[in-house]
């Protein structure tokens, strides 16, 4: 059993290094040459920037990438990361540890300042997702109040000099909140309460499969008021709503994981419009079967008209027409999970095998980075 103390010291040391130039960082951490050559192309960023978490040659990192998959910034982490809160307007982001995560790291996209390490407070851990509020003064993270067995949103002071101090929390109206998104009104949060009770002493072990119930909760970002809460029907009580994306029309699209037996095969993708019942879209039967009851990530294209949902265990990405709920096509990619918007109807997709491709429903996938033995991209891939 490794000591937490050593890990933390190493973490802080690495965090301090992360603000340095890639060359220095490479020298200090001994990144292998193939990674080195990529980090050296720092100035060659093209187009939009992206962030992702990865395991590279045994190290856990958060990275800023360009659309060619070239590293722009590497932020070391003490353990595996998951997703991000993004504040592109101010050039900032926070990466969260994968659940049960006890750390998060706030960093500047351009690496101009040293990263700031956030530690989960007592009896809370991160679930791996969060958002900044538009004024840049607060950052909100999904967390587990695990002794009480309830979901909360941790509120952090993201203002200048606020040092990401945790200033409060809101209840999410459910158990196991996973992804949170901010609606276009800039003041309403939508939280996917996955419904699964976990306790970090038992890792990710599901402790309430008999009674679990997922929900979507709409919460006022200013005062934490629960504005609207919707559930799926009782027969789907083991369908865990986990990941979210917004379509152009403001509808919330969600991706699920089914915790029931493999013989049950409910639809895994759905859409919710405020004031209506949630709708579920199954797509073709064989495609659904191949998803093996697991969607790992959801993203909308830049126009918000096409939704991509990935199933890493099914080795495929599915595309949906946001207006009609019709499935538009699939892309096969081994352990493909991270999906991020690229162009209308076009996405960047990465995989646990290190691949990065450009793909969409209309044309075949184009490889950007080929699979690599020392590199695994984590579940989420986000565009700044």
């Amino acid at each position: 059993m490794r000591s937490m103390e050593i890990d933390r010291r190493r973490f802080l040391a690495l965090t301090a290094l992360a603000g340095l130039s890639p060359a220095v960082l490479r020298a200090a951490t001994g990144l292998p040459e193939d990674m080195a050559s990529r980090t050296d192309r720092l100035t060659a960023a093209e187009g939009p920037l992206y962030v992702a978490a990865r395991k590279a040659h045994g190290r856990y990192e958060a990275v800023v990438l360009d659309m060619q998959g070239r590293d722009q910034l590497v932020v070391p982490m003490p353990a595996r990361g998951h997703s991000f809160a993004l504040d592109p307007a101010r050039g900032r982001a926070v990466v969260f540890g994968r659940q049960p995560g006890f750390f998060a790291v706030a960093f500047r996209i351009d690496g101009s300042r040293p990263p700031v390490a956030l530690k989960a407070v007592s009896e809370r851990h991160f679930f791996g997702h969060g958002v900044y509020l538009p004024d840049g003064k607060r950052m909100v993270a999904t967390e587990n109040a695990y002794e009480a067995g309830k979901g909360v949103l941790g509120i952090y002071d993201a203002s200048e000099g606020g040092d990401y101090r945790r200033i409060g929390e809101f209840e999410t109206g459910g158990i196991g909140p996973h992804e949170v998104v901010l609606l276009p009104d800039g003041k309403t949060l939508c939280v996917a309460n996955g419904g699964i009770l976990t306790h970090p002493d038992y890792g990710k072990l599901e402790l309430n499969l008999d009674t679990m119930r997922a929900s979507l909760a709409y919460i006022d970002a200013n005062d934490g008021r629960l504005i609207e809460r919707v559930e799926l029907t009782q027969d789907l009580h083991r369908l865990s709503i986990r990941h979210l994306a917004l379509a152009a029309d403001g509808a919330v699209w969600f991706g699920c994981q089914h915790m029931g037996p493999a013989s049950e095969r409910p639809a895994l993708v759905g859409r919710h419009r405020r004031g209506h019942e949630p709708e579920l879209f199954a797509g073709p039967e064989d495609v659904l079967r191949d998803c093996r009851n697991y969607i790992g990530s959801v993203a909308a294209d830049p126009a918000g008209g096409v939704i991509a949902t990935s199933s890493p265990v099914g080795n495929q990405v599915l595309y949906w027409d946001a207006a009609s709920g019709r499935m538009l096509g699939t892309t096969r990619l081994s352990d493909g999970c991270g999906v991020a918007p690229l162009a209308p109807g076009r996405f960047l997709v990465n995989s646990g095998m290190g691949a990065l491709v450009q793909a969409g429903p209309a044309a075949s996938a184009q490889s950007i980075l080929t699979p690599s033995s020392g590199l695994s991209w984590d579940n989420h891939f986000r565009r700044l």
Partner: protein
Amino acid sequence: MLKTKQWISAAVMVIAPWPALAQAPSDLGKHLADGYARPAVAKLAEQADHLQQALKTWCDSSGQADVKGVQQAFAGTMQAWAGVEFLRFGPLVQGNRYEKLAFWPDTRGVMQRQVRALLAAADPAAVAPGALASRSVAMQGLPALEYVLYDTPGLVKSAPGKDTPYACSYAVAVAGNVAAVSDELQQAWSPEGEFGRQFTAPAAGNDLYRTQQEVAAEAIKALSTGLQFARDVKLLPVLGDSAQAARAQRAAFWRSGSTVPMLAANIKGMRAFYDAGAYRYPKGEEWIGASLTGELDRAAEVLDTVDEPLQQLLADGAGWQRLALVGLILKNAKDIVDQNFAPALGVTIGFNALDGD
């Protein structure tokens, strides 16, 4: 604390894009069912039935009959469950059967709270034949039965007398429910059951298992997850970081002193489940099977040498280290399953293929 190091999850296996090195028999599902799963669930059903009879006889005698019969029947049922619990797919995860048999770990003390309330209310309707099946799962299974037998009121500790007839009826009802759920398991695994049929004869038209590879992936996942559960859920939270930090009351079935013998039975069960697969390795790869079975045997041997109560074992530095050693061995065994055995059979675990994210 160990918090950041642990994760537990049913790893989702993916068929690897490379040819398999080792070979599973072409009728792997039949080997696993006939050679292990069917006898294991049959034994559980038989033991639970026996336990219900023993409890009934004993309760009817108002505790005049020998309590040893009940204790032995309880221990036999627990051993049988330890050999079934890692088959956590198919029939065992349908209809909340796993939770009905063993609602554990119970981090919020749900079982204890509900059983106490039930005993206090002493509602005869709750213990009528079949009635428990529609109550909360926490009150239906082995942890609840252990609680009334060995803790509150502790029927086997102080003979059931005039003051505990309701608790005795409840114990009989729980044993009956465990027997009924076990019967369902046995039926589902049987050649006549839909699951048993598909698992033993994967075919393109099947809903569940279409290829032998999918059966192999299920078997590997059961082993990998079972080993992880044994270590990360049953052992590490009990051990803590040191003998001083150990917490015996976090152990599974600590009240009846079943923790260590059940862990041993669990590990022996996983070994027998592996053996039933009759996997064959090409020359030079035989070490995979030999290492895996060697590790499982070693862990079981260490546990078999334990004869002191868990509390005492943990308080003693050397005893604590013996259990910590079992944790290390189980980790090795799981690494062999994930990193060697699975890929040898053409199955791999994806980086992003873990449930819960």
